[in-house]
């Protein structure tokens, strides 16, 4: 069964790669690249097979649940796998320059590759797990590798940021685990399918789901628990930041979506969806305002992540709760997922751009970047493209996502959500216009010493930014793919 092989490979290959990079650290970069390529190929293969035959399921070693580990891929997980595989591949290619070139700190170079592969394995594990405990293990793995990545450059601020991140993450893990334990107490199983079939809306179930959601929200940096994110993401080396900001919060969000839309949609009442949506809206406004006043590029981009993650939670009131049975639900849900994906691509592109700017200008102070577009036009262009997607302007993926969400908001009469979505876009324009403007300005003194950067290196962020744009132009396929395996019959929207 090639598709079960592929399912195994997307987790197995990076884990294997992880050991190989440790053992054979000299060729770590090459191994990591090859591994992520394998993962991407496997993910694409899975996508083809899922779109042809529907969701794919396999049991590792033939052991069935509950003792064995079951892996399943539906449209949603396949899309996330492809995007994360692609991002890791491109970031890996970018990191070849960052860590392999002489003059960079060898220790961080040594540690980066294995961490990257663990991260990839954990991510893929989350995307294909059908079991809450496996999910727990995977995202603990994810958290630990992410925290380790923050510390790579060894500076005090990075350590501090990493510690703060770790504390939040541990708290989140505890809450999640507590919830999972309660679920087990109730159902005697942690398998999603089993639980999903026997949900009875008892108090214990609600408590369990609430605890898990709280833990996941902490890890997704949902407002007001976002304090750890900006220092952690801006303190890490750029390739690490790219993955941290684009993929890691999405993993915990992914679990939240699985929990509330696949496993226990009946439980998602209005208070819950409103609370999550409200926090998401607050995140949009607060994150954007903070991003506006930042003076360092990476901080702007990091706060932008806080804001953009807010959108993901607006999906709950639009597609969950009472809205779940409505015709606009499918559009809102798909819009949210597309937003997660296009944000992942755009945000990783932005962090890579920021990384290149830092190498060229030796700082990411916005004022110091004045005129850098003359030295690195391609990178500035990539940054602008990514910004367009974040703003939700056509024809980017961000636009399609916002369009779908807005359509649902209007159809459901959810004015407030529509307002928040639009306000977020306009605020994003405010905080992203400033860096773009500074980059494109003429330098104050001519001939300011920006270090030239090789063109091939600059291609990496451009590829990701173009990916975000093409997700919009070619959104037909992803849209169809995302619908496969959804429990509620996927409707083509309104």
């Amino acid at each position, binding site marked *: 069964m090639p598709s079960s092989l592929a399912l195994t490979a997307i987790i197995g290959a990076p884990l294997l790669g992880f050991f190989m990079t440790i053992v054979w650290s000299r060729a770590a970069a090459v191994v990591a690249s090859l591994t992520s390529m394998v993962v991407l190929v496997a993910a694409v293969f899975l996508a083809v097979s899922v779109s042809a035959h529907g969701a794919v399921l396999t049991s590792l070693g033939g052991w069935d649940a509950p*003792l064995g580990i079951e892996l399943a891929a539906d449209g949603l997980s396949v899309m996330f796998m492809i995007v994360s595989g692609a991002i890791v591949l491109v970031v890996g290619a970018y990191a070849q320059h960052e860590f392999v070139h002489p003059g960079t700190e060898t220790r961080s170079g040594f540690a980066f590759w294995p961490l990257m592969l663990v991260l990839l394995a954990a991510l893929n594990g989350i995307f294909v797990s059908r079991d809450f*405990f496996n999910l727990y293990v995977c995202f603990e793995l994810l958290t630990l590798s992410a925290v380790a990545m923050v*510390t790579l450059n060894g500076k005090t601020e990075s350590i501090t940021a990493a*510690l703060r991140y*770790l*504390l939040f993450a541990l708290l989140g893990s*505890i809450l999640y685990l507590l919830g999972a*334990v309660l679920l087990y107490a109730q159902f*005697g199983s942690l398998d999603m399918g089993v639980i999903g079939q026997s949900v009875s809306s008892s108090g214990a179930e609600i408590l369990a789901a609430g605890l898990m959601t709280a833990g996941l929200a902490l890890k997704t940096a949902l407002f007001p628990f976002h304090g750890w994110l900006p220092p952690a993401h801006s303190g890490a080396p750029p390739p690490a930041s790219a993955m941290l900001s684009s993929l890691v919060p999405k993993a915990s969000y992914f679990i939240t979506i699985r929990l509330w839309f696949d496993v226990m949609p009946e439980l998602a009442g209005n208070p819950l969806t409103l609370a999550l949506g409200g926090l998401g809206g607050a995140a949009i406004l607060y994150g954007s305002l903070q991003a506006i006043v930042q003076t360092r590029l990476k901080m702007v981009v990091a706060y932008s992540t806080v804001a953009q993650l807010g959108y993901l939670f607006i999906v709950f009131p639009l597609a969950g709760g009472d809205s779940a049975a409505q015709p606009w639900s499918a559009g809102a849900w798909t819009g949210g997922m597309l937003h997660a994906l296009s944000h992942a691509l755009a945000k990783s592109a932005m962090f890579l751009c920021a990384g290149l700017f830092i190498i060229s200008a030796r700082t990411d102070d916005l004022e110091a970047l004045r005129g850098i577009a003359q030295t690195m036009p391609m990178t500035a262009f990539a940054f602008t493209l990514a910004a367009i997607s974040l703003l939700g302007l056509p024809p980017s993926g961000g636009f399609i996502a916002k369009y779908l969400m807005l359509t649902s908001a209007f159809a459901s009469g959810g004015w407030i959500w529509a307002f928040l979505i639009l306000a977020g876009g306009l605020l994003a324009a405010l905080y992203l216009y400033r860096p773009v403007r500074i980059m494109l300005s003429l330098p104050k003194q001519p001939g300011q010493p920006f270090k030239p950067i090789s063109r091939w290196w600059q291609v990496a962020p451009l590829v990701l930014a173009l990916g975000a744009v093409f997700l919009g132009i070619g959104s037909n396929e992803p849209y169809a793919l995302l619908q496969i395996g959804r429990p509620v019959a996927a409707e083509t929207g309104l």
Partner: protein
Amino acid sequence: MMTWASGWLIYGLTGATLIGLGLFGFASHTNLLRRILAFNVVGSGIFLVFGATGFRVPELGADAVPQALIITGIVVALSATALAVSLITRHASLSGSATLPDDDREDR
């Protein structure tokens, strides 16, 4: 039957107490090491509760699944603790402080 049930109850209540104590510790201390310890206390509490759920259906005897999962969980918690401790030592050696900046209450 009664004994099984009360045993389950004792373990569960103890676990819940540990969780509560741990959470309190986590919130009330700013010293990083204490916080990590508090985290471990909470973790122990959760595992205890988890273990107790193994007796959920007494007729079947002890359920093997929680045991397997607890072991996995302990490994995970251990590695998290290890990472945290290494970071704390690194942090202490770099900044000379066992608390995070901006956490104004010092209680070392």
